[in-house]
């Protein structure tokens, strides 16, 4: 099969047509192939039949945000020349154990179709999909030109599957394994890359738990001259990282291993030199157990860093305060809340170019801890970092006034994710609900695309969101709202809403049904532990045949209750691989 099939043009047809001769297809396809964004591509295909066809033939990359919205056969029929596929599976709340095992999103049926239709497939990027070792082996043996494998939050495979990839994918350029729930049967997979294999550009095995053979890793890094991203796991020591950096000073992104090794002064100096020799280094992560003792070895690389991920290092405020003045170029910073407000003050004063901040809780389940960050840390960052537009912030106390100040300082938020860890907690100074805080966010931040709310919230919050959040695409809600009116306000407002996930809120059938007109323009809706009943869900399913309305029942609950509801648009109807605990209405 010719990988680049051209359609023969029926010239006589166009000459006869009343219009001027249109662009030759080849030219149109060439022009459209420069349109990269998949949203734009989608728009292009809607212009007219010629453009639909030109897009069809020239599309090489496809993005499918919900694997159940379409089937591999339909994809294959429409797009004959795909080289790169991105697929997302389970609902996002599966990250927090809200979706039972064996729910679905298995990649295998997709691979079988792709093997027939796209033998020249090069890239596969999966998020929240189930991938078995058999699938990985099938993949490795079916696509000779395969280059990029990216698995984010997937599960179902083991390191044996990685062995197959390393052994058979002779043209692999990227192997990116992140945050997956996999069976780590040992690090031998890395040694499966043959000695003749030199094409690797990206290697990320930071989330794997077992030891790889360092020798094999060192040789691999040495011979892959185009390697630009290397993220190792915590079994790699400081001394070993130093050796790797010496072999690959061209690296742009580095994830170190554990930072806890005891070093003699000579080793310390060598590490410093190694970091200093990486002139292209802009991203640094890993840094497990890093402490003030050895952190200074990274100082020579800090001036060029734009992204620093310290979310695995339990740094205290003074340690961060000493480090950050070296990192004035930072755009993205991830930290643990062990740095406390004082550490965040250092962020505000040292990193004026900061655009993204994520503060994770070191001890999210310990209610004794009185440490962590508060509203003042957030305010301090907003005060010094006026370009801030992405925040994920876990804290134990917040006030309406603080949030108002924060968005006044930084009105350009596109992503505002605030998690006050105690469910339903009020403004700790005034005891008011946190409605005005999120009101301020949506009123001030007109570019807001993603919002996660928390704390004590009444329907007022949702009235604000519905009224003001005109660009909102993703909304996450937990333990909030007072009545159906809350969710209704969102469904009646928010014209660009695509993803809505709700848990533990008093929204019932009336709220669910108020979104009837909206769900087909959304990717999905998740509602768990709300007040939905089976009848309400049935009514939704009856009225909207092009939606899949899936209910996951809890064992202990009433027959009439709909405990977990997942609603999504689909062109292929109810899925045929649903497990017994998923009822499609």
């Amino acid at each position: 099969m010719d990988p680049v099939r051209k359609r023969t043009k029926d010239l006589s047809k166009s000459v006869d047509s009343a219009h001027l001769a249109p662009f030759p297809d080849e030219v149109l396809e060439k022009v459209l192939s420069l349109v990269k964004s998949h949203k734009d591509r989608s728009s292009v295909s809607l212009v007219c039949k010629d453009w639909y066809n030109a897009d069809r033939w020239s599309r090489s990359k496809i993005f499918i945000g919900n694997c159940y919205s379409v089937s591999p056969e339909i994809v294959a029929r429409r797009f004959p020349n795909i080289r790169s596929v991105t697929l997302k599976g389970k609902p996002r709340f599966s990250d927090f154990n809200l979706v039972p095992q064996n729910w679905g999103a298995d990649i295998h049926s997709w691979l079988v179709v792709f093997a027939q239709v796209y033998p020249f497939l090069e890239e596969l990027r999966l998020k929240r999909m189930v991938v078995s070792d058999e699938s990985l082996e099938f993949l490795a043996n079916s696509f000779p030109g395969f280059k990029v494998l990216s698995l984010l939050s997937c599960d179902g495979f083991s390191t044996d599957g990685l062995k197959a990839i390393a052994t058979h994918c002779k043209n692999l350029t990227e192997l990116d394994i992140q945050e997956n729930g996999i069976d780590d049967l040992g690090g031998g997979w890395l040694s499966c890359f043959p000695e003749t294999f030199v094409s690797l550009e990206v290697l990320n095995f930071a989330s794997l738990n077992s030891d790889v053979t360092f020798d094999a890793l060192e040789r691999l890094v040495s011979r892959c001259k185009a390697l630009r991203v290397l993220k190792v796991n915590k079994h790699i020591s400081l001394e070993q990282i130093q050796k790797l950096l010496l072999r690959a000073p061209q690296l742009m992104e580095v994830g170190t291993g554990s930072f806890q090794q005891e070093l003699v002064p000579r080793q310390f100096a060598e590490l410093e030199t190694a970091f200093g020799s990486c002139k292209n280094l802009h991203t640094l992560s890993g840094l497990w157990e890093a402490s003030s003792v050895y952190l200074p070895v990274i100082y020579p690389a800090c001036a060029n860093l734009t992204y620093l991920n310290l979310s695995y290092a339990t740094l205290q405020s003074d340690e961060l305060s000493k480090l950050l003045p070296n990192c004035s170029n930072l755009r993205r910073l991830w930290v643990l809340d062990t740095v406390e407000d004082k550490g965040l003050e250092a962020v505000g004063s040292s990193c004026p170019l900061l655009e993204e901040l994520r503060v994770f809780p070191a001890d999210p389940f310990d209610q004794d801890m009185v440490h962590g960050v508060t509203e003042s840390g957030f305010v301090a960052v907003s005060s010094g970092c006026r370009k801030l537009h992405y925040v994920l912030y876990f804290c134990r106390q917040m006030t309406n006034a603080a949030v108002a100040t924060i968005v006044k300082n930084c009105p350009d938020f596109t992503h505002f994710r605030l998690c006050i860890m105690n469910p339903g907690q009020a403004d700790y100074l005034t005891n008011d609900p946190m409605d005005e805080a999120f009101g301020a966010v949506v009123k001030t931040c007109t570019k807001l695309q993603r919002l996660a709310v928390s704390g004590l919230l009444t329907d007022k919050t949702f009235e604000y969101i519905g009224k003001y959040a005109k660009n909102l695409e993703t909304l996450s809600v937990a333990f909030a709202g007072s009545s159906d009116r809350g969710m209704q306000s969102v469904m009646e407002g928010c014209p660009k809403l695509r993803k809505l996930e709700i848990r533990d809120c008093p929204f019932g059938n009336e709220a669910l049904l108020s979104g009837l007109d909206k769900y087909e323009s959304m990717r999905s809706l998740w509602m768990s532990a709300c007040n939905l009943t089976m009848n309400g869900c049935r009514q939704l399913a009856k009225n909207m045949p092009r939606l899949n309305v899936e209910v996951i029942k809890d064992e202990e609950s009433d027959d009439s209750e709909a405990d977990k509801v997942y609603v999504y648009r689909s062109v292929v109807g109810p899925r045929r691989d649903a497990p017994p605990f998923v009822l499609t209405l």
Partner: protein
Amino acid sequence: MNYEETELTLGLPGRGTKRLLSGEATTKGDKPMVVGWPPVKEHRKGITMSRRYVKVAVDGAPYLRKVDLQSYGNYDELLSALQELFGCFTESDEKKLVDCVNGTLEYVPTYEDKDGDWMLLGDVPWKMFAQSCKRLRLMTRTPSIC
């Protein structure tokens, strides 16, 4: 004059002869844990479970030792481990740490916290202590008899 109140014991002030404060303070566990909340992914859990080795100095001992605070669940376990490591003191009837040879020589467990202050062991919940302790020192003293 109530000397008992000023007596250094291993317990919360005002608790009198109460034994070492166990790590599991009563405050925790009143609220049932909610599934999937806070929304933290699996791979981010247990970060503070990583090793926390701190130096331990005992007055009179020729060299220091190191212990991993994460491997103990409460003050009792820590002190037992220290007894094993150094072997020069033991617990007296009054719940004090006294020298094996010289019964009047007392060891007072102290630690340096994040702020650089030297604190008496036992005042705060175990977990809070484990997070903020930078080093340990067992100070010797001969209690004065007034």
